[in-house]
């Protein structure tokens, strides 16, 4: 996409980085607190991921807009201020005007502040790039985060509870009732998968799996870290 503009900004690269190559959870290993805490089911992972994606896109946009005014010395407090303000804003607006969704997602929203992935992308990307690429970076990093959390949640939910996307209709609306599946018979789940140790095990296994896929594809595995720019 946008091949003519590759000289300045590679938009395809931003999308690929966010979704796979530099994925927040499986490459940068960032945002582990919500990753472990919220992925007890695929639906919870999806909800947490979507709320985070909105906040990441908004904060990246704001930081890129104001990047000329933010001096090096105070950038970290300013980023934290912006992320916290966006989280509070989303929380208030959803409580007032999207109350049904808020009752489901409300649990997740304050937790976004404890996620260091938005902060890392502001520092590594939005602080140095123009507004549009920054918005895309925030958005696709957020979508990549959403996919990761949904997959981890799905694995833990199938093993631990024997269901998949249970209660998805509460989050997405009654039209998504078809997503709610029972994979294993009731009470055959291994409960540990939905308890905290299961979070570490599932995340670790999936991370190893992704690296194996990357190795097979001939990609170099590098610990990218939070500060690498895509």
């Amino acid at each position: 996409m946008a091949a003519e503009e590759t000289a300045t900004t590679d938009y395809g690269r931003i999308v690929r980085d966010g979704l796979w190559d530099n994925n927040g959870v499986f490459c940068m290993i960032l945002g582990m607190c919500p990753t472990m805490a919220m992925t007890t089911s695929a639906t919870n992972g999806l909800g947490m991921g979507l709320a985070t994606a909105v906040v990441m896109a908004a904060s990246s946009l704001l930081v890129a807009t104001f990047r000329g005014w933010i001096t090096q010395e105070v950038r970290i407090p300013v980023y934290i201020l912006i992320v916290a303000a966006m989280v509070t804003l989303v929380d208030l607006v959803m409580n007032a005007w999207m109350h049904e969704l808020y009752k489901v997602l409300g649990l997740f929203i304050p937790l976004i502040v404890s996620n260091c992935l938005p902060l890392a992308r502001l520092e590594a990307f939005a602080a140095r790039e123009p507004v549009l690429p920054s918005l895309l970076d925030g958005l696709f990093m957020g979508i990549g985060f959403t996919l990761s959390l949904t997959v981890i949640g799905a694995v833990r939910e199938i093993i631990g509870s024997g269901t998949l996307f249970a209660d998805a209709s509460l989050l997405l609306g009654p039209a998504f009732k078809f997503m709610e599946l029972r994979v294993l018979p009731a009470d055959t789940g291994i409960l540990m998968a939905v308890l905290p140790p299961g979070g570490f095990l599932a995340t670790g296994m999936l991370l190893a799996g992704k690296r194996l896929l990357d190795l097979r594809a001939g990609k170099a595995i590098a610990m990218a870290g939070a500060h690498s720019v895509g």
Partner: protein
Amino acid sequence: MTTDAVTGRPHIHALILGGFCLGFGLLLALTYMVTSDAIRQRADDDKQNSLSQVIPPGLHDNNLVADAVTVGGADGKPVTVYRATKAQRVTAVAYEIAGSGYAGEVKLMLGVDAEGRILGVRAIAHKETPGLGDKIEPAKTDWITRFTGRSLGDPPADKWKVKKDGGVFDQFSGATITPRGVVGAIRGGLEFFAAHKAQLVEVQ
């Protein structure tokens, strides 16, 4: 970067940080002003909703939210009791009870008829683990509806516990603390009703 920049003109950085704080502070204050009425309205709707779930509409001809009395609870904290009246007689009462869950307080609304039988219990606010402790929500499982029809003597007082503690109520697989807190809170709520029955069902 360098200490030079910090010691050089620190007031610039202070001004920038202060400016951002002011700007986003104003933005949040504005958002709060715009949303606060709607949020209060939603909270009232939720209360009305949970009241109508624990007191069947056929039991009253009054406005539940409007007909509230305050009674001193066991720990000295005042409890707001919503009363359902029909033809000037109190048919049922509902009030908030709280139990300690796995992650803080679990707030519930308890509806009791004039004889002390449970009409319904609903969780109204909790922070329990999604997928485990949140099975107290009626949207997730029907566990909370099992209390309907129970009273202080049914089961006997020493059986008003989860099965793990020798009582009659199921816990969830993987979560005992939340059901234990909820069962304890409901039992406490029934004891509150028994202690204040005369005061609660009298009509002034």
